[in-house]
């Protein structure tokens, strides 16, 4: 026993023994993740401090916000991102709109992920009649038209942002549930889960300590993909009168209001579109970095 597998012992000792830095520390070492974090921070700060960042009111139709012919103004010194069809400052509306869009993109989308993961994991791990029932219900929801559900809910409750968030959460969890189900059922067959059972691990420990961490990459990818689609879905719903009511701004409805004037006033679509893109990209970059950091087998392989 004096010489346990010599070459490997050497390889192991070459690696410097040091304290592993925390997740945030590792995140800050990746330039792309830092860019993502900065964009997210700007968006959040912009939404929170909107009243202090701009001199205009988001809903005020400014007298000098339109040309003499009544056309919107392109970006200029007074209105950095130009004005919209009613003469409102676009920058101000994007800042205030971030409040709505963040709630939809992060909260509603996050709720969808949570529901989807819970359903998928439960169905995938327990199988049997519980799994069957849950997955058939998932199929049912998949076949259910989102707009119809939204209209029904809006008829019962007051139309508001929270209805939209709820609808998005209720509609978007199905894909996550399907994918998490498949992954969980294959994970549950892996030998290390059997090994956990032989040392007496209970179901909660297996689910939360040994299965959930393996699902993180999938959940992160689906979460970031969901941000841009949900922001736009909110616009659709608002357009139908279910979500936020005009004149309240959201990135989605700014695009929606103005897309017919895309050729005459391209900035009205370009800037909010760029904001959605940047936010989705930022979450994607951070998500990618997190996935690599949280996966020990990827560590040190940039």
């Amino acid at each position: 026993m004096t010489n346990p597998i010599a070459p490997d012992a050497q390889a192991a000792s070459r690696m410097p023994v040091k304290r592993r830095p925390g997740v945030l520390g590792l995140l800050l070492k990746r330039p792309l993740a830092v860019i993502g974090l900065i964009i997210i921070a700007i968006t959040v700060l912009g939404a929170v401090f909107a009243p202090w960042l701009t001199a205009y009111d988001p809903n005020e139709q400014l007298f000098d916000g339109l040309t003499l012919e009544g056309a919107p103004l392109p970006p200029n010194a007074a209105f950095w991102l130009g004005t919209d069809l009613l003469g409102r400052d676009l920058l101000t509306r994007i800042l205030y709109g971030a409040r709505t869009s963040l709630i939809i993109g992060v909260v509603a989308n996050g709720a969808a992920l949570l529901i989807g993961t819970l359903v998928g994991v439960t169905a995938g791990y327990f199988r049997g009649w519980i799994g069957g029932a849950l997955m058939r219900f998932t199929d049912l929801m998949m076949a259910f038209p989102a707009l119809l559900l939204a209209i029904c809910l809006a008829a019962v409750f007051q139309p508001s942002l929270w209805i939209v968030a709820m609808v998005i959460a209720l509609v978007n969890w199905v894909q996550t549930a399907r994918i998490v189900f498949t992954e969980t059922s294959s994970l549950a067959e892996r030998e290390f889960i059997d090994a956990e059972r032989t040392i007496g691990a209970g179901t909660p420990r297996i689910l939360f300590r040994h299965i959930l961490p393996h699902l993180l990459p999938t959940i992160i990818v689906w979460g970031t993909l969901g941000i841009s689609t949900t922001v736009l879905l909110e616009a659709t719903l608002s357009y139908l009168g279910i979500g936020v009511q005009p004149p309240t701004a959201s990135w989605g409805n700014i695009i929606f209001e103005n897309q017919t004037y895309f050729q005459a006033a391209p900035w009205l679509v370009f800037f909010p579109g760029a904001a959605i893109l940047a936010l989705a990209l930022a979450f994607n970059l951070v998500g990618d970095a997190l996935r690599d950091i949280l996966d020990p087998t990827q560590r040190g392989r940039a």
Partner: protein
Amino acid sequence: MTAAADTSSGAATAAPVMDNPVLSVSGLTVSVRGDEGERAVVSDLSFVLTRGETLCIAGESGSGKSMSSLAVMGLLPQPQARVSAGSILLGDLDLTTLSEKRMQTIRGNRVAMIFQEPMTSLNPVLSIGRQLIEAIEAHTSLSGSPARARAIEALKAVRIPEAESRLKQFPHELSGGMRQRVMIAMALALKPDVLIADEPTTALDVTVQGEVLELLRDLQREQGTAVILITHDMGVVAEMADRVIIMRNGRMVEEGTISDIFERPQVDYTRELLAAVPRMGAGRAAMPAQPDEQVKPVAVAEVHDLHVRFDLHGGFFGRVTRRVHAVEGVNFSIAPNETLSLVGESGCGKSTTAKALAGLLPYSGDIAVGGRNLAGLSRDERKAVRRDVQMIFQDPYASLDPRMRVGDLVAEPLLIHGIGTPKERVDRVAALFERVGLTADQMERYPHEFSGGQRQRICIARALALRPKLIIADESVSALDVSVQARVLKLLRELQNEFGVAYLFISHDMAVVENISDKVAVMYLGQIVEMGTRDQIFDNPRHPYTKRLIEAVPVPDPARRRARFARLDSEIASPIRRIGDPPAKLQLLDAGGGHLVAAH
């Protein structure tokens, strides 16, 4: 030794070495690009292969033996690996300079290859006939019915019964041995000059291994194909080789004829490798049987009339139509400080028995641990009793959660059963690490940062953490290199002496079993056909199946090459039966001194 074998080995030694080399490799260096730049995985390998010769390349995992053969085939993993120096001459053709397109006409046609795992190297959605005929059509001018005739001829050559009807079958419908024969048929259908067989029998059962090796030898004799056989198993080397190359860390450390290597090894490494090979008979010399104690202590585990059956659903309504009778009425008991080995071939129910005992499968019958029957206990009581039974799996990498640090993994059983404070747990884990031959500072690492042998040590530490009375080792050393295997077996024996733990040792390898067991039970189709002490089983095997198993083990001694191996051309009987048609129970009779044998 029969005359046939004599003439073949005689012919090989008589043939002048320089006469007509089919393949000559000189100065071959294969480099792989990694994180730290390019690294040579094979350096400066040279050898010459003549017609009708069998060259064995032997070495442990990571020695570069597979990489060299892939280089000959032009199948190095792209884009990381490349041939960075040397030449591979097939006749007058340098294979290293050929384009991929030219290589395709050579591959299969003049140089063919058989891989380790026949299931993964056959396309599962195409019938074997289609795959065979496609290979023939791609390389010859034959097509249609002549190609089909050639395919049938090839299947007949590898002694597949009812060759014609087999053409329509899919890979999953065949057993492992049959699949490997199909692979050989495919490789030899085109009468290649060189056949490379990369661990062709490693994934097969011992009795099937014997058949496949003999088949290879026969076909080689008939067709004069030169064979490069890559293996880690010195028993297979002794059985097959004319010449041997021993590789280590990408370099050839020794080359010689079979008798040179086995009788007069020149290099220390070769000697070590040969010494590490488990040999039948060596176990008894090293560890004499303990005298039978008259006072029987309480058994740590007692299994009585154990049944495990799986229902197969079929038909339109998904009714249970057939049943897998995985374990059918198994009885045994294990005393403290004793090793009981359960041996048999794949599908015989030995792993199922282990899993039922470890609480991973529902069963019927009685399992008592430390005198307490598990059936009558509440959940919490059962959890407490189960502490005494721990398990080590075959593949240590698959049985460790890759996302957890190994220290946490070893501490986990303590945490689950609420033993000690966090500080005490860390100390105990550190002590366990030291005990199994690792260091305490490795606790912070993840499973992928260790080698196979080290990972298995981690699994052993984990199984030991709760101080169990019984450890189930399910093929725990089968996936390890021989030298690592020898060290892990030694560790297991040391731990047994130290902690008085009993082992249920599950294996298909009779040589390993002979080295570690006190008692042996042989399983076939879910039932025990013979059980007794190690000496009873190995000195005086009574059941024909036991005899067959012992006979099938390749002996690492070229002087004792087996001539003929009793062949079994039919498929192995299946444990799947229709409802209402349970298998007949075997009656075990005492053949003297507790040596139980099934009537046959």
